[in-house]
């Protein structure tokens, strides 16, 4: 025994007790070591796995999508906050109780909620029960959240089109990226749930407007609760677009069409700016930018009026008599006709064994080019067509942009058809029949055009042959730099024709309005030149117009430009099933032109002083 240094007292057994303490200490430390050996060696791999999966999660910060303005800075598309209600089934304690609570609180239909909760899918993923909630409902749910485990309110950015239906076909709509789109390289930086443009400018300028998603690094605990969040990368807002359209003119054009099916396009001939592009019937992009039920989607797609179809750029119609404008240019340029040479119109044109009729039963008598345009004499152009031949016609037609897309910044533009023997051989595997040349000469038969092509053609004539690509976007505002990048007009070439030719034709077109087939387009405030057209829908016309069911009635065309001396606007009106162009289409064109000429002088085009518009800058969060 170790000798003690102090006298024998009641503490005498201290050494024994200290020995006990040492043994106890070793025991306890041994236990600790055993426990740590168990944790680190035996269960080490298991905990290593847990720690690998623990870590941080990357959460995407959705960028604010670029805004769209008209040429005067009027807001056409922006983003608003929208509240959506999500339910994560895994966290729901009692489904029936939750359904009851939600119906009580928000007045939702219990069967709808039940159905949404019962659809197949992961229990761990939040499912959307309701979108576009009011702030009141959202706060109501938020305040009761503790009573309703599994319920979550998410703030989401919702595309909003303040004008409703206005310019719907131009703007298009947005939607969640599809599985097919995700595979494509141009959507490479996007992810499931990204919102992309699906139609219209929203689609064709998606790259500019979508911005760049940011990233947030979120540290989560073992049950996914966000413990700490740090923005790693700020989202970059998309760029804003300034369109060429004038919202006022656009609205007028749409209102003019009203309930009728058809299209109106107004162009600035000097640069190709589309001032208005209306197509009716239209859709509400606000609705299409939401998540639609399949029933809603079927309803829209199966609508007889095909509201999703942009008739201005996608509708293909026989041009009818407006095709006589390029025919007239061709006739003079190829010297097929001299301006003063005449054709005797007796109301019909015999070719082979068939007589091609003029629209006017008795005929127009002796007509020169001017008269033929003013009164839309068919026989004159039958004769021109036959002399000129289909190949020359096709060449000139192509020069005027027929049979090819104009290149406007809209998806799925159609190109129409400018027929030729080569085309027919390729498309139909049949040889060209001489009589088809006669039909094509007055814009019937195989010839089809879009209203936009006709507007562009009219603008080209008005501009003495100088052609610009029709365009919808005139400037892009770069959000990152704050620079407004103005896009230059895109020249598409020039019709190689003498100025004299255009002067003669424009004179004739002016007389069409003053004393010809389109006197209803005559304006007291501006000189207008134009040409009517009627596109045949059914080959045979078994009686007076009124007796034919509407869907077999002809389409009415009118193309116009004004003022005649120094054109500032070119307009095309296509009214489906409205009969003769002079009666129905011409007055609409006149209204558009007059309105345009009378519009209060436009504010300087977006060079400075951007309108202050509230943006929804903080994007919504989506777990990746």
């Amino acid at each position, binding site marked *: 025994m170790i000798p003690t240094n102090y006298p024998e007292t009641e503490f005498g057994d201290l050494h024994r007790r200290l020995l006990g303490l040492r043994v106890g*200490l070793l025991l306890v430390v041994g236990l600790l070591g055993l*426990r*740590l050996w168990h*944790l680190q060696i035996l269960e080490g791999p298991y905990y290593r796995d847990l720690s690998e999966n623990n870590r941080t999660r990357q959460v995407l910060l959705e960028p604010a999508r670029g805004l769209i303005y008209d040429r005067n800075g009027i807001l056409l598309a922006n983003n608003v906050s929208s509240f959506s209600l999500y339910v994560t089934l895994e966290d729901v304690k009692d489904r029936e109780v939750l359904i009851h609570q939600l119906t009580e609180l928000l007045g939702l239909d219990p069967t709808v909620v039940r159905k949404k909760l019962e659809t197949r899918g992961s229990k761990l993923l939040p499912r959307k029960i309701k979108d576009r909630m009011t702030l009141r409902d959202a706060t109501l749910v938020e305040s009761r959240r503790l009573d309703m485990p599994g319920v979550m309110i998410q703030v989401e950015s919702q595309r909003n089109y303040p004008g409703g239906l206005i310019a719907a076909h131009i703007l298009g709509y947005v939607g969640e990226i599809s599985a097919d789109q995700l595979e494509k390289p141009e959507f490479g930086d996007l992810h499931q749930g990204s919102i992309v443009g699906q139609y219209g400018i929203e689609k064709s300028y998606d790259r500019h407007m979508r911005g760049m998603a940011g990233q947030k690094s979120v540290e989560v605990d073992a049950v996914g609760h966000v413990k700490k969040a740090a923005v790693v990368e700020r989202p970059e807002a998309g760029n804003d677009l300034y369109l060429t359209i004038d919202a006022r003119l656009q609205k007028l054009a749409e209102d003019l069409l009203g309930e009728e099916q058809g299209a109106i396009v107004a162009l600035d001939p000097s640069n190709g700016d589309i001032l208005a592009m209306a197509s009716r019937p239209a859709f509400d992009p606000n609705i299409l930018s939401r998540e639609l039920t399949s029933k809603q989607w079927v309803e829209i797609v199966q609508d007889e009026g095909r509201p999703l179809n942009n008739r201005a750029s996608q509708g293909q119609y026989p041009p009818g008599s407006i095709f006589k404008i390029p025919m007239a240019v061709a006739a003079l340029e190829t010297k097929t006709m001299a301006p003063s040479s005449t054709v005797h119109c007796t109301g019909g044109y015999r070719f082979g064994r068939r007589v091609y009729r003029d629209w006017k039963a008795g005929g127009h008598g002796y007509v020169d080019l001017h008269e033929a345009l003013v009164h839309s004499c068919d026989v004159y152009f039958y004769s021109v067509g036959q002399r000129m031949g289909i190949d020359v016609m096709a060449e000139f037609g192509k020069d005027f942009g027929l049979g090819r897309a104009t290149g406007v910044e809209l998806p799925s533009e159609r190109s129409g058809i400018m027929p030729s023997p080569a085309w027919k051989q390729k498309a139909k595997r049949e040889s060209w029949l001489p009589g088809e040349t006669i039909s094509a000469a007055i814009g019937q038969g195989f010839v089809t055009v879009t209203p936009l092509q006709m507007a562009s053609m009219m603008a080209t004539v008005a501009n003495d042959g100088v052609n610009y690509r029709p365009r919808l976007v005139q400037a892009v505002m770069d959000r990152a730099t704050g620079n407004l990048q103005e896009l230059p007009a895109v020249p598409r070439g020039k019709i190689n024709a003498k100025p004299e030719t255009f002067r003669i034709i424009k004179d004739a077109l002016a007389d069409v309005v003053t004393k010809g087939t389109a006197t209803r387009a005559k304006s007291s405030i501006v000189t207008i030149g134009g040409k009517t057209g009627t596109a045949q829908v059914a080959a045979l016309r078994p009686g007076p117009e009124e007796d034919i069911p509407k869907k077999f009635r002809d389409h009415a065309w009118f193309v116009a430009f004004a003022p005649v001396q120094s054109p500032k606007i070119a307009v095309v009106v296509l009214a489906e099933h409205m009969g003769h162009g002079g009666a129905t289409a011409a007055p609409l064109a006149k209204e558009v032109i007059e309105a345009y000429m009378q519009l209060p002088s436009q504010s300087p085009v977006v060079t400075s002083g951007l309108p202050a518009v509230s943006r929804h800058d903080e994007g919504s969060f989506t777990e990746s």
Partner: protein
Amino acid sequence: MIERLTEHRGLDGFDMRYGSLILAILAIGVVSIYSVTQGQHKGLTPYYLKQLMWIGLGAAAFLVMWASDYHQLARFAYPAYVFILLMLIFVLFEGRTSKGAQRWLALGPFSFQPSEFAKLILILVLAHYYSKAPRVGWLQRVIVPGLLVLPGLLLILKQPDLGSGLSFVAIYAAMLLMVGIRSQAIGFILLFGIMLFPFAWEGVWGSLHDYQRQRIMAFVDPGYDPGGKGYHALQSRIAIGSGQLLGKGLHGGTQSQLKFLPEGHTDFVFAVFAEEWGFLGVLILLGLFVGLIWLSLEIASKAKDQLGALLAVGIVAMLCFCIVVNIGMTAGMFPIVGIPLPLVSYGGSATVMTMASLGLLLNIKRKRLSLFY
């Protein structure tokens, strides 16, 4: 006696083994704090530098204690105790609140925890009490010192600081065992405790703060409140376990580096160390602690008088309790009670107090070897 003097080199009883053990443990602490507070906000003084500063202050306290005379110190035990009680009262009114507890007293730019220093003073008080005169009978051996402990204990629990409170009880129990209470007394206390338990439970449970109850519940039932305090325990276990044999290396601890592990530089520093240095590192650290305690117990057993022996035992008990409970709680063996790991956890008061205590231990050894006392 003279043999023993020559046996240990070093100045006037300063044991080099002892010093190097302390330095090694402190170094482990600084490295772990350095590692876990990497992502700290720039501009603030890094924690490891602050800890080095505390260690410097602690070294001064160590030397002062070593150079002093514990007999002299014991004389001031009661006044010091009264002083610290006043501080504990003061802290209840003027203290800085952090995480629901009022523990800190602002002292210029620093704040310190009176409860840490209260532990050392309590050891002095009890040692002084037992060494003064023969204490016989359970009243003198158990009840009176118990009454001495009680005010400090209650004040600390009021903050609330469960960890320091339990340390108080542990110090009291350890010294009680050392002065040799009879087995009947132990039995009586146990019986009394069991009988009183329901009432005490009610009182104790009712007086606990929510977070304390949650911590205890999380220990009893780990599935309870997975996002709450069970989170600490689970993350700590994951940290330690995932370290495996060799650890993930300095800065390699994903648990601690990515802040899954809360309080990585203070109460849970052991988990940080275990994650980054593995089971081997843990064995080394445990070995260092055992060595330190072993040397301390030797000092206790060879102390030249009762006061020295009791002081040494009290200090050893305090260290042992903190080490065992801290490691036990990070390893998921005990509930989480918020006790720092001596010499390793970041913290000014605890570091200075612990180093002062170790200085006092060496003082006890020094006095044993001083022939001319």
